């Protein structure tokens, strides 16, 4: 039995380097199938990958982050907090040189904060919105998401919770509402930083289910600010429009998504080592001779 264990262990360890090499091969193959997209990992210096109004993360830490306005102009960004003091539930931050720096509602208060900016021009209203997760304890965003912030809204339903994130190949629901009421049979367009486009339609409750495409390209050569804890990110933007009394309203919600976990994981190797552990425990199931009397 010990020989079997050694042989299994050697075979498994010999495969480890191969699995590590394989992870890079997978990324390369996917990049080829997705065409000549040009990912921009660092949101702070990236050229616009969508014409829609967006608030793109441009650095920061748990106490303050910066956003770059893309595709629109505004003189301030409004930040809605998930809780805290009433005078901090909604705070305006001035835009300077196309960037804005925002802070959580209180120094030690975290969780999701909603950032939003608005441009009104030639009878058109364009709203950019995103969320920022500050890494401190804070109120859940349940109440935050129900609050009305503009006429036409795209509301995540729900947001990924801590230890979770939007990822390739996953389905996520978004509520589209007009002045608080759900908009049924309404188009919701998805654009990603890697050049994918798709359109989903809302159901009777105003919910559209969006599938984030599996479109990540080669790993970014120089990981920038879009890499958190070594994890790669890319941007996506959801947009929808509505015409009311001759006025066009366009609202966008942008955030980031991560590669599908299986790109950098191997379930086969996981199962193999799990089985190795099971085999190692099998001798415990054999009755000792003196136990049989």
């Amino acid at each position, binding site marked *: 039995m010990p020989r079997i264990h050694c042989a299994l262990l050697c075979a*498994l360890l010999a495969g*480890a*380097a191969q*699995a*590590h090499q*394989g*992870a890079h091969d997978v990324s390369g193959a996917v990049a080829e199938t997705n065409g000549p997209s040009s990912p921009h990992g660092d949101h702070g210096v990236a050229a616009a990958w969508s014409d829609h109004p967006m608030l793109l993360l441009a650095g920061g830490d748990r106490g303050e982050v910066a956003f770059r306005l893309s595709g629109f102009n505004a003189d301030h960004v409004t930040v809605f907090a*998930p809780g805290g003091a009433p005078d901090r539930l909604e705070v305006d931050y001035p835009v300077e040189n196309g960037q804005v720096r925002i802070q959580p509602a209180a*120094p*030690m208060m975290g*969780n999701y904060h909603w950032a939003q900016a608005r441009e009104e021009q030639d009878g058109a209203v364009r709203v950019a919105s995103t969320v920022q997760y500050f*890494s*401190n*304890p*804070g*109120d*859940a*965003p*349940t109440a935050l998401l129900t609050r009305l912030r503009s006429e036409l809204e795209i509301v995540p339903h*729900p*947001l990924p*919770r*801590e*230890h*979770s994130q939007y990822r390739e190949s996953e389905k996520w629901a978004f509520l589209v509402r007009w002045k608080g009421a759900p908009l049924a049979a309404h188009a919701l367009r998805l654009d990603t930083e890697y050049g994918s486009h798709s359109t989903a339609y809302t159901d009777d409750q105003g919910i559209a289910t969006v599938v984030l495409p599996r479109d990540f390209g080669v790993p970014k050569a120089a990981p920038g600010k879009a890499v958190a*804890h*070594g994890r790669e990110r890319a941007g996506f933007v959801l947009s929808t429009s509505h015409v009311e009394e001759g006025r066009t309203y366009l609202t966008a919600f942008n955030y980031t998504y991560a590669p599908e*976990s*299986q790109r*950098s*994981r*191997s*379930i086969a*190797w*996981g*199962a193999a*080592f*799990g*089985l*190795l*552990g*099971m*085999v*190692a*425990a*099998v001798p*415990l*199931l*054999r*009755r*000792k001779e003196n*136990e*049989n*009397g």
Partner: protein
Amino acid sequence: MAEAMKSLFPTMSRVRLWVQIVMLFVTVWGASVVGHYSAEKISDALPALSCAYDTQNGGYCVLVPLQHQVHHRVGTALVKAQEVTLKVLLPLAMTMLTFLAFFFVLGKAFCGWVCPLGTLQELVQRVGRRFGLPLHAVAADKLGRVRPVKWLMLLGLVLLLPLLTGMGVTAHEFGNPYCDVCPSRLATTLLTGNTEEIALKTQSPLAFAIGALGNTLFGFIAVGALAIRQPFCRICPMLALNAVFRHASLARLVKRQHDKCEKCGICTKACPMDITEIHTEHGRKAYHDDCTLCGRCAEFCPDDDVIQVKLGPFALFRSSRDYYKKRMTGEMPDGTVKPVRIVRKSPQGGA
């Protein structure tokens, strides 16, 4: 009504089993009851292995924030040559205070009554007993080698390695090393149908190696629990963390000195952690740091009022001869029950 309750909960072990099943639901799938977001969970400082990687759970294990705060706040502050200020230590203090608030009432009962991994190991062990598989107790002379492991896990994997990673001494892969080898992470995520955690990370050899170690440990525990009672609990850092504060809790085990104890020792046979001190000691020493407050020693103590499970001044359960006699009709102290027919031995001794 009373009769119905009696048939449903004939013994304390049956009460505990029901509590464990309810808590297994809460700690593995409880998000459907308590809410989706982290802030809506029962707590992020539960003294039980309720894994944060399980996106459908109802509460978080305290070991997750402990590792993250040591890694991202304390370690980072130290390496930046800043003073470790109150602002840096406050989240760590809040986590420990929240943990203690929970622990103050139930104490080590979190191990024996709430922890999902403890429950799963017990259920696997029941299968082993039911099928007549051998049972391996850890011999008294070997306990000295096993017991320090839980302290090494707590100090090394939960505190030291995350701190060194935050200071940039060790690789990022050691940021939350305990979670990476914790069998509860794999067990609870698999129970939600999520196979992501069982899949090994392949982006770096070190991440692969740590994951391989965790999966191997998980496989060993899954099968080993058929023949060893609570195999992982014995080396669990949560057991160590709970042990540090066990005398501060209202819930505790109390044993008084008794003449017959010296020749008896049934309590140790009943103990799933093979604690010999419950037999040989009394008073504070009998409530050993390995105890999970399951109460089996009290159930199988054949003498009145020698062992009690207490909550503050109130005795929740006290040993009694009548209860012992009734208890022995269904199960032996070591958990042996009447095996299922396919493995029952013939009168000649063959299978």
